[in-house]
Structures are given as C-alpha cells and as structure tokens.
C-alpha cells in the first residue's frame, strides 16, 4: 500500500460512492478509469500478500486469520467493481432506449462520448447489434423499440419541428423538416425523431 492511512477497500468505496452519486443526480459521470485501475492494482497486491502468507504458513491447519482478511478484502473489492460496472451498463442501456435505439445519435453526441470508456462504446455497439438481430425476426409485425408509456392512438400524427433535422427519407418518400413548421406524417416513419427530440407531437 502506498499510503499508511489507507485501508483495504477505501478505493472501492470511492467507486461505489461515485456510482451512487451518479444514480442520485441522474447524470452520467465520466468513466473513472484511474480509480478502476488502482483498485485492480490493489487486488494484485492483495493476491501477492495471500500467496506470501500461505507460503509462510507451512503447517496449514485450515484457519489462517491473515489470509482470511486478505481474501475478504479481495472479495469486497470485486463486488464493488462489479457493482460499478453494472451501474454503468444499466445507465448506458437506459440511455440507449431513451433515444429509441438510435446508437449513432447517441455516439455522435460529443458530450456523452467523452464520458464513455472505449470498451463501453464497444459494449453499446454489440448490444445494439444483438438488439437488431433480435428485432429482425419480427420487425414487420412488431416494433419493440416503440414507447410503451404512450401507446399510439393514430396511424398519423401531427408534428412540429423543434430542431432542424433536414430531409428525412421515409418509406413513402422524403420529407424536408424545417424548423417551426408542422407536418402530418405517418407515426411509424418519424417515431424515432420524436424520441430523439427533433420533432414534437402537437
């Protein structure tokens, strides 16, 4: 251990607290790479300590308090790391669904992108790929990405453009969405644009 004052598991606590803060404030914090790395380093140190202790204890009787202590610390660290990452993936998945499964839209946002670790981006891509694969079987009958909180009542919907999004190709031709104007369109065509905040239902 580098610092005298620190106990085993201090770093892991910090990590968990960060996750908790993120949940409470409902914001995505930057992936804390340095902290994760130092915890992993601590794990290795603990591992060496265990091996050393066990090596010294030649007459192993089954109860070695020191080794037990180290092992508990290792297990706790592991749980904290897992909790942190599970929290991260949950958040990412939530974000993914919040924009209606539009991954490019999510990743194009530099703010969000800066907060993600490279392997998190990979995770999102793969997650997206598996979703698409899953959907492809019954995409004609059911759109599982559709919102369930507000079931659609109409095939068509009157929308108003709140952010310029240019010409959009739909199944029935292209529509040039201009800021501030209203369009009567097929709901299925522009559902994702509503979710992404380009259009607003009137």
């Amino acid at each position, binding site marked *: 251990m580098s610092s005298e004052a620190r106990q085993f598991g201090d770093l892991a606590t910090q990590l968990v607290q960060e996750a908790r803060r993120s949940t409470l404030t409902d914001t995505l914090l930057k992936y804390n790479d340095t902290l994760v790395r130092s915890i992993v380093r601590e794990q290795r140190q603990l591992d060496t300590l265990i091996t050393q202790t066990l090596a010294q204890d030649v007459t192993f009787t089954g109860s070695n308090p020191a080794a037990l202590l180290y092992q508990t610390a290792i297990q706790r660290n592991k749980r904290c790391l897992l909790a942190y990452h599970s929290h991260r993936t949950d958040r990412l998945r939530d974000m993914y669904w919040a924009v209606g499964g539009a991954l490019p839209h999510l990743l194009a946002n530099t703010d969000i992108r800066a907060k993600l670790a490279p392997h998190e981006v990979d995770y999102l891509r793969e997650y997206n790929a598996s979703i698409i694969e899953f959907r492809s079987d019954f995409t004609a009958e059911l759109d599982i990405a559709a919102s369930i909180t507000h079931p659609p009542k109409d095939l068509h919907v009157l929308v*108003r453009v709140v952010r310029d999004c240019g010409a959009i190709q739909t199944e029935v031709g292209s529509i040039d969405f201009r800021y501030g104007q209203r369009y009567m369109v097929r709901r299925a065509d522009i559902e994702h644009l509503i979710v992404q905040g380009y259009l607003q239902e009137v």
Partner: protein
Amino acid sequence: MVYLCPPHLASPSRPSYTDAYSDILAAHRRSPHTSASSVIILVAPDVDALCAGRMLAELFKHDDVMHRIVPVAGGAHFNNVCEELAEYTELHTLILLNMGSIMELARADFIGNFAENLHVHIIDSQRPQSLQNLFVGGEEGERVVVWDDGGAEEMSELRAAWEALMEEVSEDGDASLEEEKDDDVDWETRSSRPGKRQSLADGNGSPGKRRKLDKAHPNRISRGQADAYRRQVEKHYSSGYWHAQSTSGTVYILATVLERVDNDLLWLAILGLTYQYVICRISREDYEKYHSIYHDEVARLNPPAPANDSYGLAAVGPDDHSLRTTEELRFALWRHWSLYDAMCHSSYVAGKLGIWKELGRKKLTGLLAKMGFSTLQTQQLYAHMDMDLKRDLRDKLEAIAPEYGMVELSYPSFVRCHGYHTQPLSAADAVEGLTALLDAATGIRMEVEVDGARNGGEWFGGGHVWRATGKWMTDDVPKGRMNGDEDGAGVEDKGEGEESTLASWTVKNFWNAFDALSDISCLNESLSLAKSVHRAIIRTGSSIIDKNDIRMTKGYNIVTIRQGPDLELFCQPGALLRLGLWLADALRDRIQGSAIGKRTRRKTIPLILACFNERAHAYLIVGINSALDFGDVPKNEFGGLFLAAQEYSHTRMRYASFETHIVEVHEADFENFVGEVYRVNERY
C-alpha cells in the same frame, strides 16, 4: 373548364368539389413512394381560412393523406413560400385557402416554376376572381382549379368577352403582346390585374396602339365590339372587392357531399361564416342566407335544446358538446364581460350613442337604468349577474333600446356547449378570441385584465402582460438557448430583417389560433386578449374622434395614426381593419346627421386609415367603403384605387395581407401615394 361548380349544379360533364377531392386522393395514392410531401395547404391568416384549413386537415386525416399546412402572412411571404415550394419535386397538390383568386396563377411564370404534375386548387371567398384562372384552358389552365360557389356559372357573357379579347391579343402583333407582357411581369408586387391596369391605360385617352392595329386587320372583331368586351372585363375587375361564400363553407359543402359532416366541422364552418359577418365581409342578407343552411344542419345533427334554456345558457351534462341556435347580441363578448363594458366596446352601440363622449356614456347609463339594471349589476361580470336579469335582458333591451335608435341589436347565431369546461361559447365570441390570437398572440406586448379584479379594489394591480399559453409559453425559453447553442436552429428568428420576424410572428400566431380551435381552455384565455384588443380599439378610436384627427379631403376621410400606446397593435392588418370598421360605424350616423339636410341623395364618405409602423418605417393603409346602413356591405373599391395610385406615383407598395384594400407604403412615399389616390379617384 377549370372551375368547379357546387355539387347542386354538378353533372358528369361538369366536375364538382368531390371530383377534385377524389383527384387529390387518387394522385396521392397513385404514388405511394413520394406521397409524404405531396400535399401542401397554404392558409391565409384569417379565421375563415383557418377554419377551412382545419376542416381540410380533418378530411385528409380520415383519408390517410399526409399533408402539411403552411400559414402565409401576405403577398411577399407568399412569394417566398412559393419559391421554396418550387424546389419540391414531389409536390402534386397545392391548396390555397383565402388567397390567390385575384392572382393570375395559370401562367407559365407561376405554375411553370413547379413540378409538372402539380395542381393548384384555389378555395377563396374573395371576389372578383381572375378570369384567367377561371376560363383559360390548355396545359397550364387545367392545372389551376378554382372551387367556385356558382358565381362563375353566371358569367358566361363575361367569359365570351374575355375569350374574344384573349384571342385578339394572341393574334395581335408584337406591340400589344408586348403591352400584355408588360402587365404580366409584375408578379413580384402581386399587382397582377392586367385587365384593370390595361383598361386604365386605355381609358386615359392615349391613342391606343390596339386601335390602329384593329384597322390594319379588318377581318377580326370590330372595334366597337372589342371595346364593349373590354368594358365588360374592366367592369368585372373594377367594380370592387367583395366576398362570396366563405372558404370554410365551401369545404363544408365538400364534407357534406362526402357524408362526413359532424358537429366539429359544422362548428368550424359556422365560425368561418360568423367571421365574415363580424368583419363586415358579407352583408346581413348574405349572412342570413348561409345562416339558414347551418341552422338546418344544427337541427339535423343535434338534439333539441332543453325547453327552459332557449338562450343556450348552460350545458346539459359534462359530455354535452352540442350546438344550439340562439340570438346573438351585438355587444362585444358580453357573456364574458360586464354588461356595461360589453356595450361600451361594441361598435354598433358606440356609433348609435356616441360613446366616445361623456354624453354618450351618460346615455348608456341612462339606457341601463331605464331597463332596470342597477349600476352594481352592470359592472358585474355577466356570469355573476343576477339570474333573473340575465333572463330578462333580451326582452328589456328590445323594449327600451329602440328609444336610443338601436333596433338591430341582435342577429341569429349559434352557441356551442363545452361540457362543464366553460359556459356555452357563442360563435361570435369564439371568432373574437381567434381574431385576437391571430393578430396579437405573440410579438406584441399586450396588457390583459384579470377577471373580477376590478371590484376587489385592485385598480392598478388587476392586469398582467399577456403570454400565449400552452406550448407557446414554454417555446421562448428553449429557443433563446438554442440560438446560443446551435446555429441554424434559430436562424429564422434571428435577424434576416423585419420581414421575416413579422412573418414568423404571423406563423406563430396562426398556430396559436389553430391549437385554440381544438383546445377550449386556450380559446377561453384568448377572450381576455380579445378584450384588450377591444379596449385598444376604443381607446384609439375615441382619441381620434376627440382630437378631430379625421381630415376630410376631396371626398375622403383620412385618418393617420402616428403615435399612441397601441401603435404596435395596429400595425397588424387585422387589428387596423377592425379599428377602421369601428370608425366607419361610429362616423356613419354622425356624418349623416350633419349632411342629410343638405343633400337629398345620401352618400357615404370612404375612409382611409393609415398607421405608422415604426419598425418598418412604413405606413399600413386600409381603405374602407362604409355602408349607408348597418349590415350592408358595399364593394370595396380601394383595391383598384391603390393599384392605380401606385402606378402613377411609382411608390413601393406591398400587400400586407391577402386583401387588396390593405397595403403598406414606405414612409417617404406616403404623402405622395395618398395624394395620388385622390387624383386617381377624381380622374374616374
């Protein structure tokens, strides 16, 4: 044949509204891969067009037609929009509501800009119509479809005259073709009335080239004949501007034939008609003609009103959205105001009693006292007035008001119940609210009074600044943010001169009113805005009369507003027109009273009302031909006058709306322009 006749005149050879509608549907369905942006409805900013747009949208929605509604503020904005639309290759149906009938659209330089399969449908209540749109055939002519109300059927003579003239022109040599061209190119200023202008040039006594040419080609129609034809066509254009069947009425007929009529559509049609009447576009006679149709429709679609409530005082149940017929009093928003205020702010009462003077107000109090209404009760909101007074109100008025010269205090109208959301809303009140929203929902700072705050003793704390409700209230905040954050998003609002801000206000106001059509709470709130508009009108109107700002020059009453608290409001064409109508009503009796002795023939004096627009450095001018009697609507001749004046004085004139008698002239040109208007009038 490129105009449609109403269904009762239709036959297999003569297409009607339904044929046009099914053509639109067919065109939409035939091209499933490009149908998303193929139908566009352009709507003028008035209540009639607004309702018609809403009705059409409803019909299209039933038929799964994807469409887009684009509000258009006025002539210049129309050109911009058309330029933009010309780029849309997939567009095949363009519907113009309350605009375009006077413009010559069946020409290569308008319709040629668009994709080849585009059809333009014109549903417009404004008259006269451009003969070219109505009668020209061929490739371009077929693509412009005018939804006529039967008036075109009676113009067969005119048609013959026009066709003969056109033929002559096309056979003529370069000279007259050139002349014709010269008339045509002014599309940009929307002064596309060749018939009118040409005739003015001819009538000027200048040796016409055409006459000489006539002699050179003796085998064509004789000179006298041609002149007669020309006079006929000229008469059509110069006889003045008026309104025929409301646009929403036309759409309602379409819905009737499609058998899709319901209470909502009927209500919208009624609003359109009431608007026409309230804004003096149609006479009492015409109003009653159309009213009787809607009266029958209301009886057909609704259960009879409960016996004890013939005035439409309350809804029967929470789901009661029925329409009822009722007599509407000519008081401004009287169901939502105190009786005294309502009478004070109605132009009819104002004119009869001279409300702008102390004496007039005394008369009004006297009238109320005679009716047995205490001051306390008349200062009370109508909703809080004593019930027996409410019941007796009409009888008392009928008994007492004639003593004060008010005989036409009521007209037949409708109310609509809105469950328990509000007391039944009358068509006239709804129109007031919608007009106020169209004129002043955003872009203008308006103070509105809080109901009931007056008798609470809070004289100075009773008002607040009007803010548009719902989506439009929150709208400003993110936009401000977006202007900073993302470029592109707010460009429309930033900069680009006054032109676009004004247009964008109109667009915002339009959507505001559009939403209010389906949202009763929005509409209810708009009534307080309407009251503020009324207050502004009476404030400005009485100050004009008080200060004797009306100059009488060469047979015209001219009023120029250069300052005042409500300058901004009256820069809106709609609001200025209302002020003009108020003045016309107020002045009618006053001037007659003084002039009636001298002349045997009564004659009204046309009114020119101008308001200075500080931002644009321009004057907004409205010309009103006031009627002799209340309820009469003469044709408005200012459209032609203004056009001729513009021609002679070479001023920059712009149409501020789609009505030809409302124009905008630059500050520097104003005096010149008005002088020219007198001169033109003297000449003819």
